[in-house]
């Protein structure tokens, strides 16, 4: 066993710090309703780092076809997919169950929303992300 002077790992720590900063920097300051976004010419939300996250119109139209008017007024976009949460795995928090409705229509299977939480498994996540590329976003938690 060798005893060395402490390595200058501050560089590594700074690198990690920057990495973690950028990880959740893309989260929107305020989410928007689907009905609002459908009326915008260039549907977008402002992100925490000052950038702008744009939605594909095709995706919004696809969602609009799936949902009725009251659900369009309730669905907040982008849908946040929590990765590494306490509940384990990947989850989506849904206050009114609209997200569960959307997921069940895309996956073509019933989706449970227990205590405002929808558990999304990896194969399901693949399908969801394929359909909802810009209308879903990852959020990393510990």
């Amino acid at each position, binding site marked *: 066993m060798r005893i060395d002077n402490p*390595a200058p790992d501050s560089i590594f720590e700074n690198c990690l710090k920057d990495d973690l900063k950028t*990880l959740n920097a893309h989260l929107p300051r305020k989410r928007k309703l689907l009905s609002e976004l459908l009326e915008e010419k260039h549907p977008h939300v402002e992100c925490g780092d000052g*950038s702008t996250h*744009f939605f594909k119109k095709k995706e919004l139209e696809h969602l609009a076809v799936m949902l009725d008017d009251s659900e369009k007024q309730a669905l907040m976009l982008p849908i946040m997919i929590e990765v590494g949460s306490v509940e384990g795995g990947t989850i989506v928090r849904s206050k009114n169950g609209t997200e569960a409705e959307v997921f069940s229509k895309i996956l073509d299977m019933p989706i449970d929303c227990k205590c405002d939480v929808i558990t999304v498994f990896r194969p399901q996540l693949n399908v969801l992300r394929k359909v909802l590329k810009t209308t879903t976003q*990852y959020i*990393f938690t510990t």
Partner: protein
Amino acid sequence: MSTKVQVTRPTKIELARLKRRMKLATRIQKIVKDRLSILIMEFLQTVKECASAKENLLADFKEAYKALSIATGYHGYAFLEKELLASDMTFKINTVTRNVAGVRLPVFETEEMDSPHFSVRNTPDTSSLIDNSAALSRKCLKAVIELAELQNSLELLGTEINKVKRINNALEHIVIPGLDATIKYLTIKFEERDREEIARLKYVKMLIEQREAYAY
């Protein structure tokens, strides 16, 4: 690979600091691993989409060239060139970005590609063959734009995966084992110091007892 023990002052404060650091490093590693798995998932999905987009593109181009060669055969090169020069094929691409796990990926969206003023000029001399060829060319253009978006995303995701993998490896093979070894080294050192202290105390106690025995 030998694990380096990095300590200058074998003190309890240093041990507490290292333990705190170890906890932080483990938490960061968990996040990094989650991020890596998400990035790999996105990468694989993009690869699949890219492959299918490429296939579509080739099929579209095959059809478009076929239609163009038929139109050329029917009207002749000179006529077709004249018609194409007069055609209005301006289009707009919106280039925006989307963020996937900290990576900014491009999003290309074509605007009003299907509107009528994008078509080839219709005169009595032109035929449906030219219109068909133009429509297929527009389809090709859309496929090219889609493929460009996917390939660019693929490159960016690949670069980020490499970066995250290196961070993960550094944490897994250098930082965490180093901290672990240092913590173990310090714990052993403190235990040894404690044992020495006990032995010393016992020796002192024995000396005192001996002295007291001699005094009587």
